């Protein structure tokens, strides 16, 4: 990995609700190199989307607040940028694909106008030039340019997601954040869309953060994987580290809960228990209440991220104690 394009240091995001504080992201560290793809995996509510929104500095405030940390993108702290600089960055340097294509397109604007808008916002081109570029983008994602003047409701879900991808890639961003881009699509379309994202990303040499809870998707597309739990990264490594040497009990649990095609099992093996209440995280390791290897120490001592092999870090006391 060369110079990192994105480096998140000690990021904490909290949401303040009436009297309680939701600790959505806690002391998160993350690095991403130019052109790399990182899979951010975790359960619903693990803080994946919050992390993504923080990178764009789009956490709704109130109630959300980034309470600590730095997000360095291309050598500059995103959190210290002015509104104008942020607007320049969004859509141009970093862009985002949203989860649900049904709702992430504006129903009263034609798809072409929506693609042209991002082009016109970030480059000095005439309306006509922007519309030509927008048609090229449509062609690039496999939709006929003639459909420029159609409204979103005239497209199917998969095609809408392609339009969203066209918008996201229209300005050749250096970082693409895809927030569960295939969750709302059916499986056959998922494969097409993923293939297309991977293909275009490769062509444009864009770094990407792929947020998902589907480990299969990650294996197909990503170089690096970060497993998130309760606002923290519990395990980080490249594909083989995670898929072949899963070390954190939570990661092992995730893989354990995927049914094996070769074995005939009647029941799935879920991870026992539920995510901890983010307003009241357990003391010590946040996974300890559900961990099959939990010890007394786990309940009081919060483990640190330890590198167990080059580039493979785990946040678990089991590995911390081994070294000592």
């Amino acid at each position, binding site marked *: 990995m060369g110079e990192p394009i994105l480096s998140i240091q000690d990021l904490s995001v909290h949401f303040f609700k009436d009297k309680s504080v939701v600790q959505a992201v806690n002391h998160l560290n993350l690095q991403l190199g130019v052109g790399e793809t990182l899979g951010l995996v975790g359960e619903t509510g693990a803080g994946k989307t919050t992390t993504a929104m923080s990178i*764009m500095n*789009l956490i709704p405030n109130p109630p959300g607040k980034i309470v600590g940390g730095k997000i360095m993108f291309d050598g500059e702290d995103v959190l210290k940028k002015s509104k104008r600089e*942020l*607007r*320049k*960055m*969004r*859509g*141009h340097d970093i*862009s*985002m694909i*949203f*989860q*649900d294509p049904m*709702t*992430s*397109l*504006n*129903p*009263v*604007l*034609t798809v*072409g106008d929506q693609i042209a*808008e*991002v082009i016109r*916002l*970030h480059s000095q081109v005439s309306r*006509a030039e922007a*519309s*030509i570029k927008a*048609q*090229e983008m449509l*062609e690039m*994602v*496999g*939709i*006929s*340019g*003639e459909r*420029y*003047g159609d*409204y979103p*409701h005239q497209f*199917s879900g*998969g*095609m809408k997601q392609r339009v*969203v991808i066209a*918008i996201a890639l229209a300005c050749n961003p250096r970082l693409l954040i895809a927030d569960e881009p295939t969750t709302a699509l059916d499986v056959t379309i998922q494969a*097409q*869309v993923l*293939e*297309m994202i991977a*293909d275009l990303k490769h062509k444009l040499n864009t770094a990407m953060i792929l947020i998902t809870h589907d480990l299969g998707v990650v294996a197909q597309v990503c170089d690096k994987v970060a497993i998130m739990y309760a606002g923290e990264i519990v395990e980080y490594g490249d594909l083989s580290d995670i898929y072949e040497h899963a070390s954190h009990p939570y990661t092992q649990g995730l893989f354990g809960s995927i049914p094996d095609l070769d074995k005939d099992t009647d029941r799935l093996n879920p991870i026992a228990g539920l995510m901890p209440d983010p307003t009241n995280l357990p003391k010590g390791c946040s996974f300890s209440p559900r961990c099959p290897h939990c010890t007394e120490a786990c309940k009081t001592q919060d483990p640190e991220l330890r590198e167990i092999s080059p580039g493979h870090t785990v946040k678990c006391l089991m590995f911390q104690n081994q070294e000592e």
Partner: protein
Amino acid sequence: MGTANVRISPSLEFGAVKKEGMLRQTWKGLKKNKLAMVGLVLIILLIIMAVFADVIAPYGVDDQDLTQKFQPPSMEHIFGTDDFGRDVFSRVIYGSRYSLAIGACAAILSAAVGMIIGSVAGFYGGKADNILMRLIDIMLAIPSTLLGISIVAALGNGIRNVIIAVAIGAVPAYARIVRASILSVKEQEYIEAARSIGASDLRIIMRHILPNCLAPIIVQITMSVAKAILEASALSFIGLGVQPPSAEWGAMLSAARPYFRSYWWVMTFPGLAIMMIIFGLNLFGDGLRDALDPKLKS
């Protein structure tokens, strides 16, 4: 749908974009709606009446002929004549000019002010919302006719002041409608998406949020033209708006009131004119709402 990497028409020539305009689509939807077309015809009639009043009216607006006073409707004076022998039909025709001017100006003025207030309150929320909406609540607490009366009383008679008075009374309705629509639209994911491509607040409001709130605003505009015409007539009727020698419909009603029991036509026709135009505007407003709804487009 083609597969991801197949270009569907690689030889397609890029050029000027053919796009069916919003107006044309709305018109298509509107044409199917019979009631809306009735409303539109009534509105167009009003506009024609106002523009070509000189040509249409058989008599001058102030032509008095005391020998012909209180003539019942006949071939000569189809709406009859009033207490000065003026032709009621001609006066109703000329009166459309006042109604059109007052209705359109008041609606545009109140829509502009109300939309600004509503947008700011709805979009930014918090303190701005609280301050602006409490002011609107205060205005709502005063009956709009009373508010109109007070404003005209303070500013003086005359068509411009009537427009201002009527417009101010209509602002709260706009502000509330726009605020409510903005609140429902601004949480949509596409607004977040618009932010994520780097659009400014103003752009998000003007280009992404307001067009999505257009349907209720358009309906409100047509309805408020109707309301403005009615209210201006009411002000004129009680002697505060346009003054009696002028052929304003409300002023005509007011002037004819003493003779109503003996000479019904003097008062009936201006009243019918007011009713028809308000009826037309309301029908058209409803039809327009249906035609503008993007969910009903096919």
